[in-house]
């Protein structure tokens, strides 16, 4: 009988460069963790989120079944190892939770091309030709090799896959495994997902009023954004905040004057989205 396939989303990172929790970043209204869990669901018998011990009660993670790291300070390999130790009978489909561009087709291709005879199946990076360890299937037989690798003081899952002779596949979509680590990369990924134009990131100020102020939870903010115009900027912000107002009912002001949704934005601009007014 075949080993069951379980899913594991790695959400134990510290998101140092992003400055806030990558698992909680929102794209089109869903957190990245929710997106990753939803992508896994059709392919696996069970899906878990991999967490550090101190994250188990975190609100973003607490709604999913969890597997806690048993070793500290090792990074993602500790999550894979903990999962294998918890369910040694299973093969594990492992996903990082900072892959916002990962699509169902890329995941389906991995499953279809999986080599059960290899210790693992993974994509070859479109950037450097090396294995991508955090969108990969680890067969049950890889458990002893991985435990041994960690016991020897090693913690790089990529080198593990190279040493293990993992079965490597070409990516059907070369951007699918682009991971995001910084606010600029987050903005760029959001633009790609919302189909909005992207330009060089610039420094923008946004002021919020009335209902948008309440929904954004702030009066103003400064941000780096690749949004080319207010339409793209609103799409980016609407992916981050629970905005309920459709752009069609809003007006836009740039530098305290009414502007078109397609006005090119420049570095230093102040943008205000104007909810339906109600003076008098």
């Amino acid at each position: 009988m075949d080993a069951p396939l379980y899913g594991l989303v790695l959400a134990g990172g510290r998101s140092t460069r992003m400055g806030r929790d990558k698992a909680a970043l929102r794209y089109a209204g869903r957190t990245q963790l929710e997106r990753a869990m939803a992508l896994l669901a059709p392919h696996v018998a069970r899906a878990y989120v991999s967490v550090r011990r101190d994250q188990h009660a975190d609100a973003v993670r607490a709604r999913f079944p969890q597997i806690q790291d048993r070793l500290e300070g090792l990074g993602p390999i500790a999550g894979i190892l903990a999962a294998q130790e918890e369910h040694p009978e299973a093969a594990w489909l492992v996903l990082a939770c900072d892959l916002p561009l990962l699509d169902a087709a890329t995941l389906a291709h991995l499953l279809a091309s999986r080599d059960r005879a290899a210790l693992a199946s993974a994509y070859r990076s479109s950037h450097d030709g090396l294995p991508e360890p955090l969108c990969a299937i680890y067969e049950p037989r890889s458990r002893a090799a991985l435990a041994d690798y960690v016991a020897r003081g090693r913690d790089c899952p990529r080198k593990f896959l190279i040493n293990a002779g993992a079965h490597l596949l070409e990516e059907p979509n070369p951007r699918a495994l682009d991971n995001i680590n910084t606010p600029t990369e987050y903005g760029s990924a959001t633009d790609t997902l919302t189909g909005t134009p992207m330009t060089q990131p610039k420094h923008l100020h946004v002021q919020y009023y009335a209902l948008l102020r309440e929904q954004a939870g702030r009066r103003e903010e400064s941000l780096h954004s690749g949004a080319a115009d207010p339409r793209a900027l609103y799409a980016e912000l609407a992916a981050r905040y629970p905005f309920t107002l459709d752009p069609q009912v809003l007006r836009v002001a740039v530098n305290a004057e009414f502007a078109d949704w397609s006005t090119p934005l420049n570095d230093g601009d102040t943008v205000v989205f104007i909810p339906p007014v109600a003076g008098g």
Partner: protein
Amino acid sequence: MTAFRFTRAPIDVARLRSGLAEPSCGGFAAFEGWVRDHNEGERVQRLEYEAFEALAVREGERILAEAMARFGVTRAACEHRLGDLAIGEVAVWVGASAPHRHEAFLAARYIIDEVKHRVPIWKKEYYLNGDSGWVNCERCASNAGADAAAHAHHR
């Protein structure tokens, strides 16, 4: 001093009226918007006004200039309250003075209509039942919420 102003203190109607006095004017018309205790079937307890002041003053000044050019009034002014208002308080005051009453009436009507449609001012109503809502915004908001709930089962 601009003729379109915001104030966080109660609107001083007598002062605004005397500011429009002019020897050549024989007609003066004013409109006051008051805080009402009900709206769309809800019992209103109080209101809160908020404005994007930098743009609101510019747009308000443009409306006053349009009214003077269009109707030939001599002076026009508008003052709008911000912050928390109780039932019965004056939320907005509009006045226009002209040689004759006809132009003054038309200008006052034009100014208040345009202010309500164009100037970035928002009103939040607090209801007796404990709810609250941004006028002209929460209706679309509650619809959007219903859509999201309807779609949730697809996930």
